[in-house]
């Protein structure tokens, strides 16, 4: 079975690289983007199977990025990371088509189980 290709989008470089490393240790193929524009560029070149997207980013907001991703590929599952505003933003994101949301700091095992669920949800 091919490794699951995950795109991590977060402006906190330290966070996103470390998380990427941990996921790779667990057998995921990880793409990293530190802003929305960069993330969207992967959709032209190297389409991920699942996206983990931080909502609080400078430049393009997470919510905006989510809309654009959904516009490009309606079926792509997106898991949102919320910093503050907590559930309210999470629920709004899900209305926009996100698969689920997690609050930072995240538990790696919880993230992995959500990633699995997300991929399985795609027919």
């Amino acid at each position, binding site marked *: 079975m091919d490794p699951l290709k995950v795109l991590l989008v977060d402006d906190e470089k330290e966070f996103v690289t470390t998380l990427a490393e941990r996921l790779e*240790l667990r057998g995921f193929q990880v793409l990293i983007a530190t802003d929305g524009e960069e993330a969207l560029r992967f959709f032209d070149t190297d389409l991920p199977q699942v996206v983990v997207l931080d909502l609080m980013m400078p430049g393009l907001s997470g919510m905006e990025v989510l809309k654009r991703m959904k516009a490009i590929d309606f079926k792509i599952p997106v898991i949102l990371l919320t910093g*503050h505003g907590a559930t309210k933003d999470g629920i709004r994101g899900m209305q926009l088509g996100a698969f689920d949301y997690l609050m930072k*700091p*995240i538990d790696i095992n919880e993230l992995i189980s959500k990633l699995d669920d997300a991929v399985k949800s795609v027919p």
Partner: protein
Amino acid sequence: MDEYCCLVDLGLINKKGIQLSYVGPYEFLGKNYSKQSWFQEVVVKGNYISDVFMGYRQFPHVAIAVLRRTEEGRYLILRATIDTSKFDNIIASMQLDQESDAFLINREGILQTPSRFYGKTLDKYPMSFPRGNYGPIVVEEVDPQNRKMLVAYAPFTKINYIMVLTKQRSALLKPWYTLRSKMLFIFAISVVTIILVVFKLTDTVVKRVKEADEKRELAYREVQHTHKLSSIGRLAAGVAHEVNNPLAIINEKAGLVKDLIEHTPKFEKKEKYLELVESVLQSVNRCKTITHRLLGFAKRMEVEFENLDLNDLIKEVLGFLEKEALYRNIDISMHMENDLPWIDSDRSQLQQVFLNILTNALAAVEDEGRITISTWGKDQETVVASIQDNGSGMSEETRRHIFEPFFTTKKEKGTGLGLSITYGIVKKLGGDIDIKTKVGEGTTFTIFLPKKQKG
């Protein structure tokens, strides 16, 4: 003789003092009066009125004699004896009141008619009286009964009698005294009324002012509290935002360290490193709990209302805590009103409220303690839920600060936000919370919730 009412007898006497004719009860015909003093007086003065005397029949009499000259130059004397009860009748007709007395005395001070207070006819008049001739005078006297009397003396000019009229001074002044005491009474009543009204008014005004002060104080405190809560809310959001990202990084770094250690074959002190990194991760988790609660606290500024059954909601919340209660053998009894009206409120926030209060109750009771949950409809607008525990209770000091953010008695275990959030929510939902507590006896939280939301 009867038609002459009071005449006892009547007789004619010639100038030699011989009784010429006589009508009356005695045999006086032919009797010689020439040697008697009254006869000589009437011959000189033309008339004579005697003092009262007790006659042969032992009742008071007055004798009157009048001299008349005939045309032939002779003269005759008409003598009559009068029963003095006539005088009594005249005095009686004066209609004297109870405290007054009127009678006649002669110039020697002998009572000529009976007196109400000073004796019978012919008794000695007990008080001194003015002698000589004078017009009517009034004097003040103290009588033998020691009463202050006003006494009026009116001597008759041709007769030896003095008319005496006595009246008790107090009786005389009685109308004045009555009027005065009436006025005093009215005055006193007025003064008392005025004082009462003034006191009542002052009292009311003071009470109003005090009430207003208290209300203002309360409102001020509430505003302050709300203000505190909302600034805490903003601060919380800021802190959560700023702290959460570095926290996430620490979490991932430490996680990676853990992963790496786990993926490395056994090396020196591996267990120690794992233990250390696990401790870091646990601390991160504790921080996470705090930031998430802070976020939750900040978030609770918006509400979504729905119609819900408070009983159901409490039972749901209790579901989360049943395990702990079971494990610690805590007796949870419920007295819920069966047809408790549904209320308009925010489900998730109310869940938070009851979760917080029930968690506190569980923390307060010993193992095998008791928690009683009751609900009832208070009135048309309000339903009430109370949660009573028989736990440790709190001091007055604790009770006063219990709803303040960051106030905690649980030291490291609590954030001090639970009851502050609870209070904020209940207030926002238009309700109120009341706490009754006693150290060693337990605590009762009573939550009042409106049935309908205003506006």
